[in-house]
């Protein structure tokens, strides 16, 4: 397994290299002219050209890619076309807010999703199960901006319990993480429910009961652990998503995170920032999924990797 792990880790390097080519080509293939965007719609063509020169965007694409790669190899992510700031500084600043937001969102939604899912599974067909389904479906069909604005109106404007937006203190995490986690919680709950139902009738669950284990232990330990694989898969996917920063939630809550950064960067075709962010997201995804893959082996020892 260690071997497998190390091999997978080493395989990341060529994968990232391929991603870098793909990302570079992709971004430059997108319609949009950063020089024009920076100069503004009201700018004259001369203004645009001077911006283009200043940004060194007038050079051939290959030269730009080679530069990008050279810099990347030395750990330099380049400078933002838009602000002239080093990209690494921008990402470093935006990373933690997004990290905290996604960790909080994931934590509560996992907790809620697991609990609700297991309870629904155990009480299949009961009013509680139906309520769980109702909540989950609400969670998934309520768009983030809707829920976010609603929560903000109620808890910040009307009740004044927490600030509306921004990230200055821990309590600012509450509303955005609820908003962000709602969809995740919904999916997790439905997933857990389905997975637990799948294992609840297995013989080894009967064995667990025969030992006289408390129903809680039977369900939460024996059944859940066996049901965990799809759940962990989903959680890994969601965490990957969340770490990319939710553009909508970050926008609504004025969150100084990767999502906002990315949105601005995309809007302005700020190539260096978009490239760097996608590379970062890819790396995150690769690592999270690697971790999830390793977890499979721990959760279900019959799963082997060669």
């Amino acid at each position, binding site marked *: 397994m260690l071997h497998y792990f190390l091999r997978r880790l080493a395989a990341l390097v060529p994968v990232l290299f391929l991603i870098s080519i793909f990302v570079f080509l992709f971004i430059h293939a997108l319609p949009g002219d950063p020089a024009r965007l920076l100069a503004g719609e009201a700018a004259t063509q001369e203004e645009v050209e001077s911006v283009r020169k200043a940004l060194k965007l007038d050079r051939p694409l290959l030269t730009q890619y080679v530069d990008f790669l050279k810099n990347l190899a030395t750990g330099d992510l380049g400078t933002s076309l838009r602000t002239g700031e080093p990209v690494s500084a921008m990402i470093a600043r935006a990373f933690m807010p997004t990290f905290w937001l996604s960790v909080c969102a994931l934590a509560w939604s996992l907790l809620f999703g697991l609990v609700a899912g297991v309870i629904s599974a155990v009480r299949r067909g009961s009013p509680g199960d139906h309520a769980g389904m109702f909540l989950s*479906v609400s969670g998934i069909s309520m768009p983030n901006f809707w829920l976010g604005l609603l929560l903000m109106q109620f808890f910040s404007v009307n009740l004044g319990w927490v600030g509306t937006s921004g990230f200055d203190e821990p309590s600012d995490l509450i509303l955005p993480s609820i908003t962000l986690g709602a969809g995740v919680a919904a999916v997790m709950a439905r997933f857990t429910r389905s997975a637990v139902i799948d294992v609840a009738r297995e013989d080894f669950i009967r064995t667990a009961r025969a030992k006289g284990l408390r129903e809680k232990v039977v369900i939460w330990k024996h059944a859940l652990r066996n049901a965990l694989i799809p759940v962990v898969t989903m959680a890994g996917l969601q965490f990957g998503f969340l770490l990319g920063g939710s553009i909508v939630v970050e926008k609504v809550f004025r969150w100084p995170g990767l999502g906002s950064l990315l949105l601005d960067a995309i809007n302005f075709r700020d190539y260096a920032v978009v490239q760097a962010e996608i590379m970062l997201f890819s790396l995150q*995804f690769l690592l999270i999924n690697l971790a999830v893959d390793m977890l499979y082996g721990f959760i279900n020892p019959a799963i082997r990797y060669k």
Partner: protein
Amino acid sequence: MALASDTSPVVPKEKTARSPFSEFRRRFVTRRAALASGFFLLLMLAMALIAPWILPFGPDEFDYRNTLSGPSALHWAGTDEFGRDIFARILNGAKLSMFIGFLSVTIGAVIGVVAGLLAGYYGGWLDSIVMRISDVLFAFPGILLAIGIVAILGAGLTNVIIAVAVFSVPAFARIVRSGTLGLKETTYVEAARAAGAPNAIIMFRHILPGVLGAVIVYFTMRIGTSILTATSLSFIGLGVEPSVAEWGAMLSTGREYMLAGKWHLTFFPGLAIFLTVLCFNILGDGLRDALDPKLDDN
């Protein structure tokens, strides 16, 4: 004394052979809630089709003297900023929204399921390639991917569906792969192999039904997300024309008026999406229960 006599008081005799599919159908039709949900969805579609003949307003009838009015006897769900009847638009949008939501997820699911099965079952380099591709697809921010896809393929309904389908593929692939990894180690898969089953049969008949529960759950949840995603595409100029009635678009434009107390602009399209997703979920639950014979005897 014949031990194999037929006198035991077991279930009524049935001589016909039942394929796994007919078995599944037999068990499915007993789930009343699921049938009702399916019926409701069809009803909604049917209403959408006959709406022009039964409703007093068309979805594209503008009335600038009567904008943003709340629900009334005349306009059941009120009117929007152009004075168009929201109820008519919702009914009319049912076709498109359900079509986009359902079709795109279906395409994504089919591709994802096959990719996930292959990756999980064969493992090795195939697994690496499929999963790394899906990692990268995931890492690309949705809008960027959408802009890219539409930049390559052009705007339009078909391409929206393709774009949304592409978003869904990686998740399905991962879900299926994870289930496959476990199921391929089971004894009954080994038994099928010992009986000489080719890989395709093992994957699709023996492993797939085991992961289908999770697939169905994700599928039904994903439909709502897809309706909303398709909308965000039309908002960056990549989807269907914004004037076409479509739930997600109605919901998005309505948000501007939300704080101004015009809740009906968002509420009704939201409700439509909610009901659709709910129905698909109930339907999905019925399907997944029907797939699990052990739940039969409850």
